[in-house]
């Protein structure tokens, strides 16, 4: 079995907008490796969600190829499930019905599937909320319920597009530790999209940094911090801080480019930031440096 699950080769995507045609993805080539958590980070609006829609199969590329296990991606499939930015639990179904929806729709609601659903609901800590409707769950619970709804289908790839955007800081850090542990334990293949560098480094096995729109891969960094990770430890971890400085300098360059700024300003920013990291002892995980 090949190490690569999904591969993108020279993928480009154009959109028609009001005035003309706009390129959002340009010649993007990347691999998603089995059993690893790949984090995609890039400036806001660079085209990350577009990339996830292409990989999920909701949209077709304008040019280039996307392959999953060596076969071209032609449409959505239960093998590649997405947790989108916005919650998509069916409000008219209970947690249990939501989680079982995939197997039920495909006529696969076997006793084993039901059992798996039950144990996943337990695993994401929603046992007491099995018969509640989504609006009765908190934001963090909804995310976990949605995750269980995806995992019950045994997807080969889980795609998460900024799943913690909009959660409060406390819930967010709890969810990050929780997801990191869960995916580690399941040996799942995950593509995780974020704009938050601390979140990216905390979760990633591989960190893919994207350029500004039209986006493509700017740099791939392997993050070799052993699991299980703790948010509190990451702050003090030298290799994490090293990755962070490298990533930030690239991200900052990309951001400056879109504002028409210079490379000099970018260098100054990173230097100032590195100086700050030298004094990390006073930093807390919930309150990272700007």
């Amino acid at each position, binding site marked *: 079995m090949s190490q690569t699950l999904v591969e993108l080769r020279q993928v480009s995507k154009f959109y028609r907008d009001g005035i003309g045609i706009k390129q959002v993805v340009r010649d993007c080539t990347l691999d998603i490796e089995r059993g690893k958590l790949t984090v995609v980070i890039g400036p806001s609006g660079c085209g990350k969600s577009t990339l996830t829609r292409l990989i999920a199969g909701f949209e077709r590329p304008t040019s280039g190829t996307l392959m999953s296990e060596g076969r071209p991606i032609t449409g*959505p499939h*239960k093998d590649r*499930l997405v947790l989108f930015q*916005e919650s*998509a639990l*069916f409000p008219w179904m209970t947690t249990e019905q939501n989680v079982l*929806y995939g197997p039920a*729709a495909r006529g696969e609601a076997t006793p084993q599937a039901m059992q798996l659903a039950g144990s996943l609901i337990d695993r994401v800590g929603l046992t007491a909320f099995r018969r509640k409707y989504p*609006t009765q769950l908190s934001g963090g619970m909804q995310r976990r319920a949605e995750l269980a709804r995806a995992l019950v289908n045994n997807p080969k790839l889980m795609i998460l597009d900024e799943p913690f955007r909009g959660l409060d800081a406390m819930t967010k850090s709890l969810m990050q530790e929780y997801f990191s542990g869960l995916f580690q334990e399941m040996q799942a293949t995950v593509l995780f999209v974020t704009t938050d560098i601390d979140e990216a480094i905390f979760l990633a096995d591989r960190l893919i940094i994207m350029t500004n729109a039209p986006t493509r891969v700017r740099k791939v960094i392997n993050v070799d911090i052993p699991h299980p990770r703790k948010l509190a430890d990451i702050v003090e971890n030298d290799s994490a801080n090293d990755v962070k400085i490298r990533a930030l300098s690239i991200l900052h360059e990309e951001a400056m480019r879109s504002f028409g700024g210079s490379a000099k300003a970018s260098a100054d920013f990173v230097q100032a930031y590195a100086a700050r990291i030298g004094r990390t002892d006073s930093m807390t995980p919930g309150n990272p440096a700007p």
Partner: protein
Amino acid sequence: MEMVASGAIGREDSRLAMIRRRLALSLRSPAPYLALLGFALFLGFWHLAVEVWQLPRFRAMPSLGAVVGDWISRDPIYGLSLFTPEYYAHIWASLRRVLLAFALATALGVPLGMAFGWSPAFRRYVFPLFEILRPIPALAWVPLAIVMFHGTESSVRFITFLPAFFATALNTMLGVSSIDESYLRAARCLGASRWQTFRHVVVPGAMPFIFTGLQISIGVAWFSLVAGEMLAGEFGLGYVIYTGYTLVTYPTIVIGMVTLGLVGYVSSAIIRLVGRRLMQWHARNLGIEG
């Protein structure tokens, strides 16, 4: 303090205790007293304006005493009271027409609205025509309806049906198009067929709008029913009101009006209740927010 205690019992002792608790709660809130006060003020003004002060425009009106006296009399002066079978015959005649028209409007309006919302092609063909016909007031159809149906009964039913049908179809369409794209995408991703997506996502997702439509529908049904009965009826509450006018039996007019108000209120309350029953997820949603 008592409320806390009765709350604890309510949890243990299920239904009856809960109803009792709700009753106690609602008696504690000012709402029922204010409502009673509103009624009392209105009736008091009516009585004073007609019989005591004899205000210019009110002098010729039937007095509160005359109306209530006749309404609850075993031997009513003007022939219609709670104790005469004709009273119920009229209510039944109107109710039957409304229910028939409402049922037909629902049976045709919901599927049409679904089709509008679900199929853009269908909408492009039919919706413009629909939008031209919809603003024509039901009363404008009366002459054509009489010509078309040769009899009064069918034409009254027809003009009762028409606006109810338009309200139902329009709201159902809005309901279908209000459904968030992400639910459809989630269903597709999880392996639901088009038909399953329709049944499990489109129908329940549009339900709140459909029920809003049904509330409007029964309201406009009563509205045009009375207009129809006044012009072309031989029975019914609209007919009672109109003959009360031509025969100068004014208390009968008011008895007819009040009865209409009560029957109309009850019919839309029933729809609201059914809606709440069917959409517990939605009621809870509102309950949490409210």
